């Protein structure tokens, strides 16, 4: 090092002062976390396994009703979904066949009663459980098929039968309006 350099480096006024940069502020995720906690609590509160079991099917056009009966507290429901072209039975969604099989095929009708009886027996093994059959049918299904399902359910030993609908307190007013417009 040259002496002049040494002298210049010792000169305080000429010393380069490094500017201190402010630290970048981190993004606060506390509010987001609060929001997620609220959503989580809401979802956990609203969700229940029973609701999932008797969830509505988008392929079924449910009839609308004003009243809404509660499922028994100790009721264990076996769902039967009747679509216009097929029937799905049980929580495992087993394919049964077409609705016409209920009326035209005695063997298939007997198979349904056998299956439902097995379901009743398995439900009754649970303590204090009540057997409920939950019929979820499309609006346009003729009642002949519903009658056969109810017959099979009662023959199998179900104590309670429920029909799935969509709650609409104003259906009668809407119906009245549509009748008036015709």
């Amino acid at each position, binding site marked *: 090092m040259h002496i002049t350099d040494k002298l210049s480096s010792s000169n305080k006024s000429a010393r380069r002062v490094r500017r201190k940069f402010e*630290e970048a502020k*981190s993004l606060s*995720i*506390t509010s*987001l*976390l609060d929001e*997620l*906690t609220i*959503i*989580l609590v809401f*979802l*956990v509160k*609203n*969700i229940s396994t029973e*609701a*999932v079991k*008797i*969830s*509505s099917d988008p392929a079924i056009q*449910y*009839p609308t*009703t*004003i*009243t*809404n*009966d*509660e*499922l028994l507290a100790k009721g264990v429901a076996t769902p039967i979904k*009747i679509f216009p072209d097929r029937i799905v039975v049980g929580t495992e969604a087993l394919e049964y066949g077409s609705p016409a099989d209920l009326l035209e095929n005695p063997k298939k009708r007997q198979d349904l009663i056998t299956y439902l009886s097995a379901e009743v027996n398995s439900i009754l093994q649970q303590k204090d459980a009540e057997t409920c059959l*939950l019929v*979820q*049918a*499309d*609006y*346009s*299904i*003729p*009642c*002949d098929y*519903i*009658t056969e399902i*109810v*017959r099979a*359910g*009662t*023959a199998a030993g179900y104590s*309670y*039968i*429920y*029909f*799935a*609908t*969509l*709650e609409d307190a104003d*259906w*009668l007013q809407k*119906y*009245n309006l549509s*009748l008036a417009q*015709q």
Partner: protein
Amino acid sequence: MERYRPSAMRQQKSQTIPQEPNLVPIMNLFLTIIPMLMMMVVISQIALLALNFSQGEGGVTTGGGGGGGGPVTEKVEIHILGKNYAASTNFLGMEIREPGVATKNIPAINGFYDYPSLDKALQEIRSRKGDLNDITVLVHPDVLYGDLMKTIDLCKVHGFSQVHYSAPKVQYY
């Protein structure tokens, strides 16, 4: 006068801003759970209509009403007549049968069942029979399920908590 200590200066330098708790793992957990729960949540919750059975009734009874001796019961029946029946009788609609009262016919309007009239008829029955809980709905085989549900629903709205379901034996001539 306070003495200056070089070591104190070093200590000051080592002090840093207190660290925020690491929220990344909990955020990951939330971001996994919330979509899963949202997939499970039922947007349109279905309602339920309970069907009741009277004693000795095997779910669906078959018959045309009426009956022989024994005490007269206050049995109110709503017959929902199907289109096949209408083809032979030229009457599509509903009938309300009560013992000791003339049968009330509720004709369909343009092929649609007249629920507002049924509503009024049930209201009138309720005003006459305040303590009656039982009512029977007899439905023809070709009547649609939606029409059956609407009829049962109106019965329940008017306080007939025990709605019985019956399928009449239909003979078309």
